[in-house]
């Protein structure tokens, strides 16, 4: 049986083997913070951390993530970096409808963990795979910058 490490816990997966990770997270484990926006890994709403890497999860079968530490937005809320990024998003009011937001929080946290210091252009490139239709981008970039400086 497939076992996945999700938010620090090793969990047995009973979903059909071809089920994409996002559906396993949402439907089997009721972790609904991971959003599905396209089912094609084109929009970034389903972004989670695999180890510290930001990955999209709505089309890749869960089994591909065996052996990696999956962290969802719910798990990130328990970590210092995750909280810092979330606080920066709140301070910058970096959401409108909010559907893209959780994926962006995950991606910015990954950036923080993997890049340390980064500039706006780096963040812009790193977030290229994330779509936002309301136009919250400038605030997200400001939040990324603030979180990086530690003054979220």
């Amino acid at each position: 049986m497939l076992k996945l490490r999700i938010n620090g816990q090793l969990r047995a997966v009973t979903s059909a083997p071809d089920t994409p990770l996002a559906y396993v997270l949402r439907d089997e484990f009721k972790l609904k913070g991971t959003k599905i926006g396209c089912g094609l890994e084109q929009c970034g709403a389903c972004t989670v951390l695999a180890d510290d890497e930001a990955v999209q999860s709505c089309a890749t079968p869960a089994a591909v993530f065996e052996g990696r530490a999956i962290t969802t937005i719910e798990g990130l809320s328990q970590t210092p970096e995750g909280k810092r990024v979330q606080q920066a998003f709140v301070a910058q009011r970096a959401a409108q409808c909010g559907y893209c937001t959780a994926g962006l929080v995950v991606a910015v946290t990954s950036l923080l963990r993997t890049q340390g210091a980064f500039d706006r252009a780096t963040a812009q490139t790193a977030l290229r795979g994330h779509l936002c239709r309301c136009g919250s981008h400038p605030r997200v970039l400001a939040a990324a910058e603030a979180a990086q400086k530690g003054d979220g």
Partner: protein
Amino acid sequence: MSLTVYPFVRDWLRVAQGRLVLRTGKVDIGQRISTALMRIAAEELSLPIDRIDVAPVRTGDSPDEGITSGSNSIQQTGQAQRLACATARGAALLRAAEGFGVDVAALDLAEGLVRHRGSNKQISVLDLLSELADDLKVDPEAPSRALNTALGDAPPRGLRAMVEGTFAYLHDLERPGMLHARIVRPPVLDAVLIDIDPDPLHRAQAAGLQIIRDGSFLAVAGTPEWAVVRGAEKLSAACNWDIGTGLETGDVFEVMAERDAERLTVVNGFPETSLRLPEPIETPDFEATFKRPYTLHGALAPSAALAEFKAGQLEILTHSQGIYPLRDSIADSLAMAPEDVVVEHAPGSGCYGHNAADDVAFETALIARALPDRPVLLKYTRADEHAREPVGPAMAVSVRASLDDEGEVAALWMEARGDTFRGRPRAGPNRAGAARLAANRARDADIPRFVPEPNMNRHAGLHRNLDPIYAFADKRLVKALVPDLPLRSSALRCLGATANILALESMMDSLAGRAGADPISYRQRHLEDRRAAAVLDRLQDMLKRPPFLGEGAGRGIAYAQYKNAMTRVGVAVDLTVQECGAVRLDHVRLAADAGRVVDADGLRAQLEGGVLQGASWALHEEVHWGPSGRETLDWDSYPVLRFDEVPKITIEVIGGGDAPSVGAGEASPPPTVAAIANGIFAATGLRLYRLPLNADAIMTAALQE
């Protein structure tokens, strides 16, 4: 106005369990109207914002305020709420004065408490409000309190939950026994389902999936969600459809130019049936036609709804912008009494107008009715949404202008042409509500086909912002509705204002250049509105630094006042046309006047978001289709603005003082689109007439020079 139908204070606010509960018919679609209402109530009643809730928006319970659209919420529900709260405050203070046996003038109201100066008497304003008479009427003259700037830091409703991933969208809801559902999408709306290959059908049923069919409407329901997704895909491959003649192809602008149109003269923003059509200008000094293609709403979350059919009653959760019109349209479609259909709003992602929300709500109702006593959560797939949502119509705006000796506009003829923006299900003749729900075109239901009629309201539909804000002496304006163009169309944020402002502001830009005038002062020469002049003065101040004049760089200016009555916006876009032809936005500066500001940060967020959505429309967005349906079915084939294209944005809001608060949600996209077109002209000398202004369009125009 909302108050004529709902005249009582208790229609708008009540006290429950020690909290103030605001009631509204307008729904929060990410534009923060609920936050704005809470701020208004907090201001008027001096209540801490965390003691205020907004009631669920639900038919039979909430005030019927029609559709949440047109940037009207702050004026309609916002103004009603302000007056209701102000009336309630006056009544509460009177009651406190009576109770204390003192004069009202000796009372202070702060932080939710009414205190008597000179004694220790005090009482909670919520206690007072809970005792207000049921028949207390809202006083339309109730005086508003001065702005309470201390509210500035309250975060928008739901923001914390959004960043933590705990904000419950409709898509995330669970109910005991709930089934997931997907539709099996026909290639085009009118396709007829001839047959389904029996083997895959039986396999799906054997796997426990429910197959729901009503005529050519086909859907799959079951659990878990992924099994339903896969089941619908497999069933789709097993379906044999007849698409008839399919969608009409060819250049939609040529088609609409040749086709008979219903043409109406527009005067002061109103189409007039009794007036003769104006003569076009015979020998214009400026003549051009500007085109905007079909555009998606492209909500980030494909539409969804949750419904249950129980004891003859349908209960539906939807992210529709109009719960009452949708309820009536669904009741009509299913021959049910409106009271037996309860529609409640639940958050979806941003919608930017009439997307597939209403269609999905009805389709969920169809599935739920076939599977009584089981909650059903239907979600569209990304391809369903891209393929089925009613698109913003393609529009062509022709302008002809003649100039006086000073190079100023003496006469303008202008025609806005295209299909309808009015696709929302809403009751009307010939069962217009039911006729506008997509599934009714597939069902075995005898519902006449919807025939659009021109929207005769002020600055509506195709003629939104057709009437220039400029004081041209001779204005000859025509609205030309061309029904039945290939794609089903409906309301998209800003309606006709986007194409009309693109046309007008491109013209003003060209004419300023021809007159050798600065684009801002040239516009000001034609403006009589002092607040417009002030907005442009502010924009001028923001542009103290000259534009960067590197290779391919340019600055474009545009001005618009949404519906000539709402937020005034001046935009300057500094951009660079790169060697490959693609535009890079460098810096967007925007000055705006929205009257009295309720939620300063919310206002800026709307303006800023509008700039970026406008930029996305301007640079990227266009729907493509063939005879057997739309071809832009994902985010690769339908590109939108991405993070690495986001410019620096500077926004300055000038004080509207006590001028009434006006909507801002649609004020910034149209002038942004026009300013980008003008920036490209400044950078390259190329005047582009058709959106999107992408690398292909620019290279093609350059080659034709």
